[in-house]
């Protein structure tokens, strides 16, 4: 077997490698949540991929071919959202919704997808496999 100092060195190398792996992998896979107010106050922060949550403003949903346009509002701030493809059936005016995407140069938020709403909790599109807690 490997002797003690050698083993310690090996553990140190493994830990360092693991830390490097984790921080490297987190670099652009971490998605932050923003409210419409935060996006308006600091548009640059929303140029990277973020999640945007708010109420779908009643009367704001328009369909234009395969693109759906609507506005998300939260405490008086509103952000226009452009989503290509069909939003899920749970997406409705006057309800809360979370979209994932990035702010476009024209100030319209380009949503890649709507995060599905579940009961009164938000979960990323595929809900968990364990049923017991899917309330």
């Amino acid at each position, binding site marked *: 077997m490997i002797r003690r100092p050698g083993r310690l060195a090996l553990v140190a190398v493994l830990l360092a490698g693991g830390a490097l792996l984790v921080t490297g992998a*987190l670099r652009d896979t971490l998605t932050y949540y923003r409210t419409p107010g935060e996006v308006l106050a600091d548009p640059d922060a929303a140029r990277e991929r973020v999640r945007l949550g708010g109420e779908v403003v009643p009367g704001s949903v328009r369909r234009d071919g395969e693109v759906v346009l609507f506005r998300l509002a939260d405490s008086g701030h509103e952000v226009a959202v452009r989503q290509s493809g069909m939003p899920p059936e749970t997406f409705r005016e006057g309800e809360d919704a979370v979209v994932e995407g990035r702010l476009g140069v024209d100030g319209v938020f380009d949503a890649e997808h709507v995060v599905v709403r579940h009961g009164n909790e938000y979960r990323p599109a595929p809900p968990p496999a*364990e049923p017991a807690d899917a309330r």
Partner: protein
Amino acid sequence: MLGDLGTAGLVAGLLAAPLAALLWLRVALAGAPARPARLASVGALLAAVTACAVLEAALLGHDFSVRFVAENGGRHVPLYYAVTSLWSAMDGSLLLWLLVLAGYGALFARGRPDRLRACAMVVISVVTTFFFALSTFAANPFRAVHPVPPDGPGPNPLLQEHAAMGVHPPLLYAGYLGMVVPFALALAAPLAGPDGRDWLRLARPWALVAWTTLTAGIVLGAWWSYAVLGWGGYWAWDPVENASLLPWLTTTALLHTSLGGGRGRERWNSVLACAGFLLVLLGTFLTRSGAVASVHAFTESPLGPLLLGFVLLAVLATTVLTGPRQPPPARPGVPLWSRPTAVLVNTVLLVTVAAVVLIGTVLPLIAEPVTGTRASVGPGYYHRTAVPLAVVVLLLAGLPPALRVRDRAGVLRRLALPGAAALATVAAVGLLSRPGAAALTAFGAAAFVLTGLLTAPGVPTTAGLRRSRRRAATLGHAGLALLAVGVAASATYARVDERTLRVGETIRVGDVAARLESVQRAAPGGRMTVRARLVVSSGGHSHLAAPVLRYDPARDMAVTVPAIDAGTRRDVYLTLLAVAADGGSASVRLAVNPLVGLIWAGGAVGTAAGLLALSDTVRARRVRRPHPTGRRVPVAAGASP
């Protein structure tokens, strides 16, 4: 009325479980007779049975004065799903949890009552007491409702779509809670004096039971997610899924470190046995407190602080009890090219995968108070960290047949053919298509493993105990390789398209075409159902597919049930996303998923391997029993205090 009976059951359990802890403590310290302690443990089980039976009776009898029934029952719910609604929401599922936990306690209490078993039973009884208290005070499903509603909404509609609802959660719980026995034994070993040396031999069958049921539960959950949720996937790196994977990883590692009596790996065995159940507790906290799953903190659960406190307490107790040890006595050197080295590397890798997944799961929880922003970790993180490590683990699974010889040259000679097969596979797949590096290595590694297992000398001939142990391992590793091929192929070669079709229009993916024939609406029993009919044709064959979109007004929730045409080569997977109000058009998602069937097959083979290993272990005990003083596996020289 029923509600009072149920609460009485919980209170009885709350009395029986701590009584059991005290009585087992007396057995451990004073050598008192074990019979009263056993009776107390059985009493706790009976209390849990009563609570579950009462809640089932209330659900089936539509007694809406009971809170849980008012929230999750309904007159329209079919019998099967009325039975399964016991575990369709948190408070009821805690009762099932208690039932399984108390069941393991009562089963484990039956053996020879030496000091080790008594100490372990104290630990199990304390855990049982905590969950009885949690259920009674913080999540009592039996509280009365005033005024009594005439009907309930029924369980979450997602949980009424697939028969797996009756099997998947109980299997998961059997897996999670089975880990309490190895955990308790590892904690008890340093306290039990000379008896403690034998803890690993006692723990291994329970770890096998837990591993087997958890494997089946996880794969069944993936299958269910694939067949019900309509997004076409089976694993999403969701916190709840990760919570089930973490203890599976550490228990897999434990089953390897405990091979051959676990000699020379005393520390690993103890740490892994404890880690399994601690991760189960942590997962319970993550999924039941609303801490991670809910992005917007709508649901504040009172269980959160209690569970977190218990997790921290358990970690502390584990560290204190198993931490300070004498260093194990010096061992004779082990050759580098040997099974112990492979097991060590495998263990380190599995633990690293678990650590990486754990970090990704709890990071959002820690990041929020620290940085002030809410964040979520995407699947990309896991694809870059856990997946490559898992491919290396898969490669290691091909080594055991070669490592049966002792010298380096022999090992290399035995690895030549599997290695060649792996390289050939990589070359062939890489030339024919362009999968990513991870998928390509996974295919190569799977070829390496399967070739190694199939060409190993002596497979599959003579019986005998040693060989049948290998048989279980061979089967398990083959299952892993099959699963890996299924995952890599379906992740790499799946093709998807989404379109809004008018009636008569066609969507195409590869050589598969689906033409929308009709959209029908119906509203049986208050649930609005939209059914699209499509003719799916590929390669001259055609069949009718009918994906469904259901809306449940009681829960204000839509469920999309895909139409899956499962084949050995590929699945054709059709989902109805939305329909126009006039019924003239529908948005459809068509996916062609190759080799998904291999994932379920791999899971089934893995489960079978667990059962085989279990039956071999039990048979080995029977063979050994006539000579109680005979060949005992010497265990855990470092396990004594």
